[in-house]
């Protein structure tokens, strides 16, 4: 498959770009932050997203969605990245849908239509420690009666503070570090013993820390098979990684475009600063980094759609490369904007903050390079 967007995909990009540019430019995030909005996102906009068909992009058609794939998810995330739009798209439309479509018929019927129509927000709870280490999950799920009792704590649960449904990875067996013994559960955040703390993050986006204290769930709450959750979790995380890589490509390119524009406007020493070769060459290498990250990301998304079981390598390449590039893009953005880049009034700093969060989401560049080394056994 050619590494270019199809006509339909280009149309999707244009419609996502049009909608987000108009309704949620960076000023939208800034307003949410400055007004200390209680939820940190706009429910009206999420409804609008659903009406445009974006919330149900990955939901199968028989549940009211469009039945599209990772490439399309990445296209929307790229536009979200350009505008730093706070949106449950990643948590709900991408991660939760990817998990739920791997559930049983009842689970799909119960949740997927509500996600597609924008009435249900869902969040994936995986990480526990400071770094993304899915196999190190320690949260316990012990059999109790017909169901399970959950105990433990999750961090960086994206949109966990507003979720109507939590998808929680816990241990029904095995020890931290082992692939076996992981199970995914569907948990009602209003259930007894669940306590949700909204965490105000550096990027003014939305996440939560969630505690589970003897939370009782029924056997029906198990998503997939007991003890066999690793493969399912990998598949869901891989789509999330590809999607976040795409968000980073979008934000990198936006920062880059703003920076190049500035190089063509700002004068010092009687010259446009874009005339200085020291800056030209740095801009050129950054452009190349972004192009390479874009190609690797599209490759990963296409592979996820064509042969998801074999996508880990391409996904790790994309997440690592896009992460390194985004980190560089935002730093060059601030540096080349000089003192203006350090001001809160200027948007570049907001991109830097979001890039830092995107790096950590589902494994940073080091994590994914390590994954490559392990897969190649050296």
């Amino acid at each position, binding site marked *: 498959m*050619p*590494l*270019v967007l199809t006509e339909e995909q280009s149309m999707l990009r244009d419609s996502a770009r049009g909608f987000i540019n108009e309704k949620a430019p960076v000023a939208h995030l800034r307003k949410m932050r400055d007004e200390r909005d209680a939820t940190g996102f706009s429910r009206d906009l999420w409804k609008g997203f659903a009406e445009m068909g974006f919330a149900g992009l990955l939901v199968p058609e028989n549940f009211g969605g469009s039945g599209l794939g990772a490439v399309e998810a990445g296209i929307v995330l790229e536009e979200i990245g350009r505008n730093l739009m706070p949106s449950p798209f990643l948590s709900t439309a991408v991660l939760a849908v990817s998990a739920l479509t791997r559930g049983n018929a009842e689970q799909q019927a119960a949740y997927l239509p509500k996600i597609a129509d924008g009435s249900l927000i869902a969040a994936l709870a995986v990480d526990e420690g400071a770094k993304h280490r899915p196999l190190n999950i320690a949260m316990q799920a012990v059999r109790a009666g017909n169901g399970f009792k959950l105990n433990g704590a999750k961090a960086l649960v994206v949109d966990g503070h507003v979720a109507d449904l939590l998808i929680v990875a816990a241990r029904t067996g095995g020890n931290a570090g082992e692939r076996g013994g992981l199970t995914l559960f569907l948990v009602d955040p209003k259930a007894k013993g669940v306590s949700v703390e909204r965490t105000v993050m550096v990027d003014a986006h939305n996440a939560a820390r969630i505690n589970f204290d003897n939370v009782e769930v029924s056997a029906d709450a198990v998503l997939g098979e007991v003890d066999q959750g690793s493969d399912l979790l990998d598949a869901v995380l891989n789509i999330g990684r590809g999607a976040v890589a795409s968000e980073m490509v979008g934000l990198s390119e936006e920062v880059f475009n703003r920076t*190049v524009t500035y*190089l*063509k406007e700002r004068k010092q020493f009687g*010259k*446009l600063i*874009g*005339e200085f*070769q020291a800056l*030209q*060459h740095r*801009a*050129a*290498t950054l*452009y*190349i980094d972004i*192009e*390479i*990250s*874009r*190609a*690797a990301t*599209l*490759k990963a998304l296409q592979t996820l759609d064509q042969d998801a079981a074999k996508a880990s*390598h*391409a996904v*790790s*390449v*994309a997440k*690592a*490369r896009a992460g*390194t590039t985004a980190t560089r893009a935002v730093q060059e953005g601030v540096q080349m904007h000089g003192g203006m880049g350090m001001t809160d009034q200027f948007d570049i700093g907001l991109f830097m903050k979001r890039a830092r969060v995107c790096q950590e989401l589902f494994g940073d*560049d*080091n994590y*994914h*390079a*390590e994954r*490559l*080394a392990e897969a*190649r*056994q*050296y």
Partner: protein
Amino acid sequence: MSDLDQFRRETRAWLEANCPPEMRNPVATDDDVFWGGRNTKFSSEAQKVWFERMRDKGWTVPDWPKQYGGGGLDGAEAKVLREEMAAMGARPPLSSFGIWMLGPALLKYGTEEQKAEHLPKITAGLIRWCQGYSEPNAGSDLASLQTRAESDGDDYVITGQKIWTSYANYADWIFCLVRTDPTAKKHDGISFILFDMASKGVSTKPILLISGKSPFCETFFDGVRVPKSHVVGTVNRGWDVAKYLLQHERAMISGLGDRSVGRPLGQIAADSIGSDAQGKLDDPILRGQIAAFEVDEAALACAAERAVDLAKAGQGHPAFSSAMKYYGTELNKRRYEILMSAGGIDALEWESPRSREGARPRAWLRTKANSIEGGTSEVMLGIVAKRILDLPGA
């Protein structure tokens, strides 16, 4: 089954039946490369058989028109053939500056007579070409070249010197930039001309490099007579041809580091350094460097694939080959720094059968030219800044 799937199946079967086993492992030394030409010799029977079968199929240059001995494949079919050859580790049957550089320029700028004369001899490996571009005082500033071509009846008389002419001492013909109008501005008085290296007045002198090898020559022209009909494109507009050809040269050089087949770098390193109890390379920092390198290498391969697909879709930027050339060559240098570090003391040996006469350190030193030849990294970044980013005064 789509036509393309059908083509893939047939191609795979044909390659399985026709590619000798000896031609299915990575190129290790210069002997493994077949360059063609009047004085060429095959280094093995397998190399000969492989070349002849591919030539007869038109697959020495799969995407050139059949009338010139190419395969007539469209872009998608050529990609399938590349993928299938890569999957079995099949070597290119013929390496040639005629294929990579001159051919594309002739297809775009050549007359029908020129194409009919030269392209079939390229696809059949009969003529080996070299490139007369750089001069002692025209390196990065190539357009300041001074080799003169003076009009004399139906001929030009060419006098001057080229340098860094790759394999000029083995080449049969040269494609050469000469100044046909010394009074014009520097980009406007240049012509692109073809002539036989056996012509009277041509001489070459190999240049010994830090690798201990001499892939480049100084090339001297002392009153060489060349028919005016050998000019490609318009007289005094040779810079257009030169630039177009450079795009192809840069795309070719950026692909030199492609090691999608063969042993992963981490395992090559483990062969010499060893592994710890967990099976991890016994040099954790080098291991991290290799992993980061492999991320970049894999990402570059995606970008190369995408560049071809974009060009096919009419969405490519003509200067993008400069971006790829920059990244590919810097990456190849990094690869060889890692290989030298991984090889440690063993990689220092310069002469011995054990070290295959210092193959690794010589290859390491050779890569240092990658970011100089065909336009330096700094020139590439300048082109990206000017032509793609449209930065001022670049």
